[in-house]
Structure formats: structure tokens, C-alpha cells
């Protein structure tokens, strides 16, 4: 902008003040550029902007040249720093570099060629000012939107599902790789929003770790892209959100820890019960079984001089008692599973069933003993229910594996209406499966048969 003669102005004082301040807008614009949010504050850019203020009061041509050069340096340096910041919009940074190069180039040209073309010609200054100010305002507004989203997070946290903070914050700051982990305090490590233990990686070139503190106490940490600048600016707001969310995470971790303990306890109880069942089974096999065999032998060889029908009836009763004892023993502990494996034991079960039964066995289906025993009990109970309660005319059994689980599907065409909440059969099976980390689903609409889907991890073991 060229200088004017103040004494020809109709308001000399006003003109004098205006002349003194005529370049002040330029360092102020540089100030706005340097103040844009970013990961790092550039000392070079801030210094150049500060120097531009006094330079703006210098008389032409030194004043405009110095201000233009300092503005070019400030804007260019800031733009270069922001270019390395991946959370900062690219185009404003690129524009800043081009603008700074143009401004610096034309200023240098003017410095070496007096009277040559200069950027301070009016239309160029006006266009540059409008475009630069609009770009700065757009970037500031976009960061304002991000801040508002984080503020909303704090407000909405009460309704947030677990893990929602991370997802929404990642969206708000433009870093999809963001993870928020919550401190358990007292050197207890970190957990995620679901309460799972998380190992915080060491900060390196790929990942940065920003600790979140509240009143000097570490409450959380953000693991993020090192170039995510917005996090630094938003740390205070995130701290407020993380403190509330961290309470949830710590509760989740506590619940999970207690659930693990309870589950381990259930497994130990199950293991102890199975040991008892195994001992009872052994007693039946070794004590009662041989005695019944001996009794049967005596009766078969007894003289039939007396009432032969009576001896025959006693033998029939004895045979029935042996069969029931066998069934009872097998129900107590499925020795066949140990001897034949799950597939063999289920095939044996099917062979003894009085119901028409379709059996699909996946080849080589096997797992650890507790898992196989649980599956055997499911099949056994389902067949017994189909026969005794469901009035079924046929049953189908599918046994196979899915990922790391043994899976059984048993379906009958009976009257349905089975309720796993009543009685002890299905409820007991469900407890057994859940204690081993599995599940039991029962579908049994009245008149539409019953379908059981049981799943249990293959390699589960019980430690006493």
C-alpha cells in the first residue's frame, strides 16, 4: 500500500493516525495464522510475527518490505509445521506455503528491483487478505467443531455405551487409531473401556502415548498417532470425560476379575463333583456290579425243584436292576467318554435309544475330557427328555466343532414347551456348560418341538 500525504487530507489528525497504523493489519493476520491450533508452537513463526508489529510502523519502503518478509516467514513456517500434523487439514497448509512463497518472492523482487512489481498493489493485497482470512476462519471453525464434539462427549457421557468415548473422540479429532486406556491406580496397569487389561506400548515413531491426569493423578492414557495435534489442545476436556469413563472401565475390570474368580470357583466345584461321581461310579462298578453278577449266577444255577417261575421272575428283576444300575452309573460319570471318546460314547447312546435317531458326527470330533463329558451329558439329557417328556417320535443329533468349540445341536419333533428355568435337568446342564465357558440355547415353542444348541470350548481344563 502506498503512502499518502497526511496534510492534504480533510481530517489531518485522522489521516496521521491512519498512516501510522496502515500496515498493522498484516502482523495481526500473521498473529491469527500462528494462533491456529497445532501440536507444536513454532518459536520462529511467533518471533517473526512479534517482530512484524514494530516493523509495521516503519516508513516505506522499509516498513512494507520488512512486514511482507516477516509475514511470509511466519506464515510459511507455520504452514510447514502444520503440514507435518496429520490431524490438521492439508489444503490450508498447502495454501499457506504457496502464499508464503509468493509473498516472500515478490518482496525479494521488490527489494532488489526498486520500482518493480510488488504484492502490495491494491487488488493483490485485497484478494490475498480475503482468501487468507477466510482460510484461517474456516480452519478455526473446523477445530471449534472438534472441540464442541469433545465437550458434547463430556455432557453425553452418562448415556454413552462402554467404549463410546474412544469412538467418538477418534471421530472428533480425526484419528481412527486412537485408543483410550484407563489407569487402575496404584501401579495396577491399564484397562480398556470393557475392563480388559491393556499393555500400553512404549512411545515410538509409530505410536504416541499422551497421559491424562486429574489433580496430578494419572487417570488414563491416550495411545494415538504421533501427528494428532488436536489431542494436546483437548487434553483438559478429555481428562474430564476420561475420569467419568474410567470409573466405568475400572468397574468393568473389577466385575471381570470377580467373574473370573467365580467361574474358576464354579469349575473347581464342578471338578470336585465329577470326582465324586467318578468315585461313586467306581464303587458301583467294583462292588455292586460283581455282587449282582454273582447273585445272577447263583440264581441261574439254582435247582428248579421248587417254583421255577419265581426264580425266573427274580432273574428278570435282577436283569432289570442291572440295566438300571448301568444307566445310573453311566449317568453318574460317563466312563464311555473316557474309553471311546465323545463320538463313540454318543454312538453308544444312540444305539441304546428306543427313539428313531438321526446322528451326524463330524469326523474326528474330540476335546478335553471335561468338555466331552459336558457334551455327552447334553446329548444324554436331551434324548431322555425327548423320550420321557416331549412325546417325540424322532430326534436328530449333530455333533461337530466350530472354531475352538465343541458344538451339539439336538432337535426333536415333540410337543415342545420345555422351560430351562424349571426343573434341574436343563438348568444343571446350562450351569455345567457355563462353568466351562460354554453356553446352552433352548428353543422350545409349544407344538414345535425342542431344539438345543450347546457349545463348549474344546480345550477347557479343570484345576483343583
Amino acid at each position, binding site marked *: 500500500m502506498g503512502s499518502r500525504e497526511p496534510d492534504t487530507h480533510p481530517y489531518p489528525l485522522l489521516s496521521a493516525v491512519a498512516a501510522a497504523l*496502515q500496515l498493522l*493489519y498484516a502482523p495481526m493476520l500473521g498473529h491469527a495464522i500462528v494462533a491456529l491450533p497445532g501440536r507444536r508452537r513454532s518459536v520462529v513463526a511467533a518471533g517473526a510475527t512479534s517482530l512484524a508489529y514494530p516493523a509495521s510502523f516503519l516508513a516505506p519502503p522499509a516498513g512494507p518490505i520488512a512486514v511482507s518478509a516477516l509475514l511470509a516467514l511466519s506464515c510459511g513456517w507455520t504452514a510447514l509445521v502444520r503440514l507435518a500434523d496429520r490431524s490438521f487439514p492439508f489444503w490450508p497448509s498447502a495454501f499457506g506455503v504457496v502464499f508464503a512463497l509468493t509473498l516472500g518472492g515478490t518482496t525479494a523482487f521488490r527489494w532488489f528491483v526498486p520500482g518493480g512489481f510488488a504484492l502490495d498493489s491494491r487488488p493483490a493485497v485485497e484478494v490475498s487478505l480475503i482468501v487468507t482470512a477466510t482460510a484461517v476462519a*474456516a480452519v478455526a471453525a473446523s*477445530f471449534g467443531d472438534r472441540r464442541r464434539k469433545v465437550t458434547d462427549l463430556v455432557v453425553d457421557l452418562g448415556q454413552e455405551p462402554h467404549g463410546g468415548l474412544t469412538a467418538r473422540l477418534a471421530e472428533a479429532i480425526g484419528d481412527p487409531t486412537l485408543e483410550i486406556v484407563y489407569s487402575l491406580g496404584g501401579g495396577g496397569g491399564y484397562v480398556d473401556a470393557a475392563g480388559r487389561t491393556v499393555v500400553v506400548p512404549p512411545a515410538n515413531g509409530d505410536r504416541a502415548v499422551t497421559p491424562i491426569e486429574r489433580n496430578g493423578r494419572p487417570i488414563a492414557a491416550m495411545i494415538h498417532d504421533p501427528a494428532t495435534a488436536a489431542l494436546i489442545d483437548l487434553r483438559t476436556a478429555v481428562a474430564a470425560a476420561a475420569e467419568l469413563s474410567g470409573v466405568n472401565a475400572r468397574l468393568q475390570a473389577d466385575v471381570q476379575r470377580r467373574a473370573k474368580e467365580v467361574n474358576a470357583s464354579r469349575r473347581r466345584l464342578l471338578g470336585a463333583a465329577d470326582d465324586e461321581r467318578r468315585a461313586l461310579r467306581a464303587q458301583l462298578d467294583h462292588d455292586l456290579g460283581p455282587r449282582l453278577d454273582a447273585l445272577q449266577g447263583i440264581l441261574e444255577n439254582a435247582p428248579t425243584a421248587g417254583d421255577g417261575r419265581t426264580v425266573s421272575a427274580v432273574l428278570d428283576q435282577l436283569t432289570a436292576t442291572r440295566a438300571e444300575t448301568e444307566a445310573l452309573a453311566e449317568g453318574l460319570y460317563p466312563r464311555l467318554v473316557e474309553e471311546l471318546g465323545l463320538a463313540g460314547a454318543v454312538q453308544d447312546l444312540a444305539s441304546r435309544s428306543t427313539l428313531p435317531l438321526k446322528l451326524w458326527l463330524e469326523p474326528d470330533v474330540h476335546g478335553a475330557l471335561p468338555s466331552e463329558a459336558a457334551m455327552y451329558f447334553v446329548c444324554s439329557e436331551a434324548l431322555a427328555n425327548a423320550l420321557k417328556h416331549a412325546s417325540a417320535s424322532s430326534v436328530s443329533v449333530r455333533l461337530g466343532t466350530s472354531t475352538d468349540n465343541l458344538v451339539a445341536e439336538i432337535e426333536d419333533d415333540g410337543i415342545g414347551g420345555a422351560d430351562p428355568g424349571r426343573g434341574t435337568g436343563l438348568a444343571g446342564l446350562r450351569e455345567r456348560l457355563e462353568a466351562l465357558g460354554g453356553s446352552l440355547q433352548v428353543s422350545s415353542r409349544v407344538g414345535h418341538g425342542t431344539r438345543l444348541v450347546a457349545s463348549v470350548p474344546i480345550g477347557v481344563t479343570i484345576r483343583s
Partner: protein
Amino acid sequence: MSFGAASLWIRSRDGLASAGAIMLFVGGLVILRLGFGPFDLTAGVLAVLTGWLVGVAGLVAWLRSTSGRIGLILVAVAGAWAVANLTRTPTHC
């Protein structure tokens, strides 16, 4: 609207932004009147438009941004630009 409500409105961010917009508009007219003569009207209109656009950009940034510092600096840039243009004298055009 009661005076109390008006006072509250002026103190709100929207109210302050509206007042700033009015000041920008009036400032532009003042520049046209005091800084530019009839033969330099095109340059005057361009200067005023520039000030208005920069000021509006600042007001929008101020309204949209939580801290609003950058928006206020841009409004100040518009003000400084307006003052700078008062050196244009009607007698020189």
C-alpha cells in the same frame, strides 16, 4: 422485548456478533465517506468489501470456535484494515 432481555441478548455471543456485524457495516460506510473520493469509488468499494469479508469471516470463526481467539483477531484485522484505508484522501483521487 424488555431492557433486561435486550441486555441479555447483547451479552450473548450471537448478540455480540450481530453488533460486530453492524459496526463493520457502519465502519465500511465511514471509510467510503472519509477515505475515498467520488473518482476513487471502485477502489473504495473494493476496500470496504475486503474489510467486510474479513470481518464476517472472523465473526463466523468466533461463533463456531469455542475459544474464539482467532475469530476476534480476524475482526481486529478488519478494523485495522479499515483504519489503514482512511489514509486515502478524496482530494487525491
